[in-house]
């Protein structure tokens, strides 16, 4: 009786295996979550020190235009206005995404619907290769090719939002393209067949069926590209000019959050206001990255293709 009861009620080999499997995969996910929480906590705790320890008002930080954390202004308050950097970061990000999207979608369509055989064979490896080019090299080419070119066309120094946009455009192109390819491939073939069977031309099919069906995932692709552009530092730093000034037009030197952070973090003393203020910039970057990801999640949820 006991023997049989044991045999029947004791966990089988299979269920024991299952427990092991669960433990392994749960441990991995827990480890990653600890990593994420630790970095979030770390940046947040340092980033808010500007406001809690140095008593800078949040509003002053977000709306001020003077960035000179080492010195005090006439009223005896530190000059930590991050607005010019916030504006520039958003400008280069949005402009780069605006320029890159048509190109990326065109390339994606080319690879999925116009010339799937040769397109995928030739374009895919090259686009993946672009992801691997170090940002330093992009920055260097930006500095030696793009900046002089802009200077030649518009005068001035050549550094600025336009140069940053061009460099970022090339850098986010592979990201947006490869995600757009996935988006278009996810549209079931019978959508295409149905449209073509109704006598629609290829362009009508692309425009009225494909792009619409894939729209949410295409948007996700663009936002992914923007997130990459927003956080890019080394390449942008070399071409943006790093002057904390409100951008008056596209070709005056200005500064992004990342370029300011990279340029000055090594020169500041830990625990002092200039250092804390830089961590606050990092905190803005982190929050924006969260916002981008939440956007992706929301759009992704609405746009799942139901089959």
């Amino acid at each position, binding site marked *: 009786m006991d023997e049989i009861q044991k045999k029947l009620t004791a966990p089988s080999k299979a269920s024991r295996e299952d427990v092991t499997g669960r433990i392994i995969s749960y441990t991995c996910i827990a480890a990653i979550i600890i990593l994420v929480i630790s970095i979030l906590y770390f940046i947040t705790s340092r980033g808010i020190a500007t406001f809690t320890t140095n008593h800078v008002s949040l509003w002053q930080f977000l709306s001020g235009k003077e960035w*000179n*954390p*080492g*010195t005090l202004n006439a009223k005896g308050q530190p000059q930590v206005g991050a607005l010019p950097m916030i504006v520039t970061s958003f400008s280069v990000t949005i402009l780069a995404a605006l320029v890159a999207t048509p190109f990326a979608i065109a390339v994606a369509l080319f690879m999925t619907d116009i010339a799937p055989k040769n397109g995928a064979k030739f374009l895919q490896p090259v686009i993946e290769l672009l992801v691997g080019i170090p940002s330093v090299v992009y920055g260097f080419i930006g*500095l*030696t090719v793009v*900046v*002089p070119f802009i*200077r030649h066309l518009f005068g*001035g*120094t*050549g*550094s600025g939002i336009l140069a940053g946009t061009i460099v970022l455009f090339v850098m986010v192109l592979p990201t947006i393209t490869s995600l757009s390819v996935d988006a278009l491939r996810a549209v079931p073939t019978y959508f295409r067949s149905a449209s073509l069977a109704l006598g629609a031309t290829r362009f009508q099919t692309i425009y009225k069926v494909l792009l619409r069906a894939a729209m949410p995932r295409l948007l996700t692709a663009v936002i992914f590209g923007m997130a990459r552009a927003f956080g890019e530092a080394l390449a942008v*730093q*070399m071409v943006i*000019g*790093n*002057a*904390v*000034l409100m951008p008056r037009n596209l070709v005056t*030197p200005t*500064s992004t959050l990342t370029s300011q952070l*990279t*340029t*000055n*973090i*090594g*020169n*500041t*003393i*830990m*625990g*002092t206001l*200039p*250092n804390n203020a830089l961590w606050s910039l990092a905190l803005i970057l982190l929050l924006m990255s969260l916002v981008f990801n939440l956007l992706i999640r929301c759009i992704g949820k609405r746009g799942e293709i139901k089959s």
Partner: protein
Amino acid sequence: MTAVGSTALQPLVEQAAQDYQASNKKVNLTVQGGGSGTGLSQVQQGAVQIGNSDIFAEQSSGIKANKLVDHKVAVVGMTPVVNPSTGVTNISMAQLRDIFTGKITNWKQVGGKDQKISVINRAQGSGTRATFESAVLEGKKAVTSQEQDSNGTVQKLVSSTPGAISYLAFSYVNDKVKALSIGNVKPTDKNVTTNKWTIWSYEHMYTKGQPNKATEGFLKYMNSGKVQNSLVHKLGYISIHDMKVTKNAKNVVTK
């Protein structure tokens, strides 16, 4: 033993450390960059044994300088450089100040071509900028302009931007940029040693309190003829043994 800090000083210390370890097998030395601020913060916290810095610890807020011991290992001279197209080779200190504070905006005001001046500054808080501002600006505030944080990038930008002016350590001056004389004094090592050329600074290696045996051994080596008479020159620095004047943290120069 770890030395962290100034990227400008890193190549010198790195090479010296390699030579030193070749004859002292027991010593394990790591030399890294990270910037002067990082070097000072970390040596103050005791996370590293040596903090390399381009500036006096006294000049950095947030650093308790009395806890740190200064070891000066080299002198670096800096010179204003311009794009060769400006046609200027010599200016006065007052003109230089006016250019960097934004009062003079065209090269023809200082005897050059009719060309807009574009100022390229160094990163706020960097040692190079602190040295230049204390020697040139007399406490006035520099005009907000482009900032670059490395000698290499500044050199490339000045050589390619018409009308550009910035400043570089002597060793980064090449034939694509023009080094300016100030009041007819040429930027040479010899003029630095007598303080005729006033834009220069020390390269410091800070320790927290008196260094321990191993660290002291290496610092002595840095100060020895072996390093001072050959390596220091090869890397474009000026040996501290050649200096005929000294400068303190308040920028007062004495003979």
